[in-house]
């Protein structure tokens, strides 16, 4: 079906508009050839010479070599140091970083705990203590989780809470119906957008959170998925990317929320795959790292936002994986453990998680596989029974297709 708001991507191959003379002249000046003459040599270039073919084949061969991490030794990743780093960061409750980040505590915990699970060391923390804390963040009047005790509930931290409980296989503690009602209340009637909380701020991040939560707690239709898909589609930009709201600048983080969100609705056909794939692949800079927008510096967190999006789209081979892995490994702190945003900067739990997650997607030895849509270890997704996405983008398991109203598609 054609896009409702006249985006015209699927139509404009055939439609032509009459150009006035001035416009035609500007265009012809621009390209240096007449538009109306299909026989002009400009539109009929000769075939490639043998030398040119050889160059092209060489480029293709080199592109293939960039796929996969064979040759990367497991000990290049300072696993034990990262485990100790994460453990310490959760224990030093007097540290300024701890005190000032209570407004995102649950998310911080999710980053740290998932890192530990990916490294196979969830045992170093006290599961009961953590689960207790998570449950103390539950706000029963609202039906959501706050980032910390005494704070207000929000969809961001509701997702983090559900993710943490999933890691520890304590999903039975979740009040699914209450959360489902909370999510329903967050969907805007006018356009299907999702708000963060009762205060009404709207952002594609929140759409992703609501879609992920509703899937994980098996209440997929507490929100109208069809309407969310339409809203996400409005956030698609002229460069193929997605922003925080319609017209918002394309940004890799927001791209992930939209690509992941569409995957959760079995609606990835809404993505302009070639255009967006290209935009994502362009995030890789010479040093091997990935940036979040054109002309910005690389940052380890974009390793995840970009790579998971490419993975869902079946295009992880569109970047040089070895160069990216080298970049991430170069961001490790050899003294303290942990991973920083770029080499020689201070590490933090956020970048530690996203660096490990990206290495996991690329199959780095010694890290458990992670699911690109849920950002949870694959074994956790299997245990819950939600759809899983493989490294080449193929999907197994249930899909929450809005059109079929939750009909499950078993492999």
């Amino acid at each position, binding site marked *: 079906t054609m896009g409702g708001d006249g985006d015209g991507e699927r139509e404009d191959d055939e439609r032509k*508009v009459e150009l006035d003379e001035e416009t035609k002249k500007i265009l012809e000046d621009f390209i240096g050839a007449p538009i109306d003459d299909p026989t002009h040599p400009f539109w009929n270039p000769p075939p490639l010479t043998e030398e040119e073919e050889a160059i*092209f084949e060489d480029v293709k061969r080199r592109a293939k070599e960039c796929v996969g991490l064979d040759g990367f030794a497991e000990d290049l990743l300072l696993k034990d140091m990262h485990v100790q780093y994460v453990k310490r960061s959760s224990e030093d409750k007097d540290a300024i970083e701890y005190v000032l980040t209570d407004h995102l505590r649950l998310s911080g915990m999710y980053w740290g705990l998932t890192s530990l699970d990916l490294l196979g060391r969830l045992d170093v923390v006290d599961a009961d203590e953590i689960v207790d804390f998570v449950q103390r963040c539950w706000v029963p009047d609202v039906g959501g989780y706050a980032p910390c005790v005494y704070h207000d509930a929000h969809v961001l931290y509701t997702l983090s809470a559900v993710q943490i409980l999933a890691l520890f296989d304590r999903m039975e503690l979740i009040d699914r119906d209450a959360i489902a009602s909370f999510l329903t209340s967050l969907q805007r009637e006018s356009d299907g957008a999702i708000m963060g909380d009762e205060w009404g701020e709207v952002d594609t991040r929140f759409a992703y959170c609501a879609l992920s939560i509703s899937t994980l707690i098996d209440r997929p239709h507490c929100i109208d998925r069809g309407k969310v898909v339409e809203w996400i589609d409005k956030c698609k*930009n002229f460069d193929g990317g997605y922003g925080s709201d319609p017209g918002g600048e394309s940004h890799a983080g927001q791209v992930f929320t939209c690509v992941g969100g569409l995957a959760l609705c079995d609606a990835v056909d809404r993505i302009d795959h070639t255009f967006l794939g290209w935009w994502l692949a362009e995030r890789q800079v010479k040093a091997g790292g990935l940036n979040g927008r054109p*002309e910005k510096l690389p940052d380890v967190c974009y390793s995840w936002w970009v790579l998971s999006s490419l993975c869902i789209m079946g295009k992880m081979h569109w970047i040089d994986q070895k160069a990216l892995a080298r970049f991430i490994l170069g961001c490790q702190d050899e003294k303290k453990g942990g991973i920083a945003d770029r080499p020689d900067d201070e590490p933090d739990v956020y970048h530690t998680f996203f660096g490990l997650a990206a290495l996991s997607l690329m199959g780095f030895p010694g890290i458990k596989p992670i699911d690109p849509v849920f950002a949870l270890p694959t074994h956790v997704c299997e245990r819950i029974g939600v759809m899983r996405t493989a490294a080449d983008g193929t999907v197994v398991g249930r899909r929450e297709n809005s059109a079929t109203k939750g009909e499950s598609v078993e492999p």
Partner: protein
Amino acid sequence: AMSSSSSEDADADERVPYSRRPEWADVEPIPQPESANPVVLIDYADEYVDAVDVWRAVYRSRERSLRVLDLTRDVIGMNGGAYTVWHHRWELVLALGVDLAEELRYAGAMARANPKNYQVWNHMRLCSQAMKASGDDARATLAWELNETHTRIALMMDAKNIHAWTQRAWAVRTFGRWTDEMDFTERMIDDDVRNNSAWNQRFFCVVGGLGGFVTSTDGNGSGDGNAKSAPGDGGDVVVLASAELAFAKSQLDKSPHNESAWNYVRGILKRPNVGWGWRGEGEAIARKHLGDIFGDASRRRVGGTSSDDERGGESDGESRGEA
């Protein structure tokens, strides 16, 4: 998965640290003595904990007074990310009848201190919406001017601050200032032709000002319509499109390796009313400049055969290897 503050890097400085410069390899750097910082940090933490403990008490007791308003200012001053405190402050602003223009200025000042923080900008939107809703044109104009000033100042510190640009886009849409903003994007592009945010904003004005995809309820809209945008029609779009292509061309002539400008050209060409297929015109424009960069081989390659048509169905990964 998400943080409540942006993960964006602070500046575009690309210098190599001394520790990695070969010409400095003979010098052993002396690190900051460890004792210095922790003392300062611990004091600060004590002040914060002290203030926040009191705030929690008055948040619970629902006290609404000027002293609580001042307390929120104090807490926010130490921790701009304190989301609930921001909302509490908004409740107080409404309950106590605080002057919204003053509150907007305060939020603007906080934006300078916390430019990557979502709450600051959300606070500005709340104040601005309320000023617009008052129905007084002078108040609405003032709200636009304060938004324009404070976002412009934030962009002087970081020309790519996505929050500041988002706020500007919201204000442009709410107050119908499309033409003003086109001029602003041109100045920003002149400052830095590679500023992707500026190019994005320009595109936003081109389509938004034509009553295109943007509606009153999109994003964090004020909910009462784009009073000052005219509905677009085919003719207007084509005229604007040729002007914008000429603009993009002049920028590309200065600096052909510019992803943002290329995406902009593609975006203009893909607009439905413009109606040109991407394949012919887009590749043609690319060819003009690729020829300069890569020489004859690419000129012949990009001229195009059906096998490298990006538009028809899925292209396989091999095509990524092409320039």
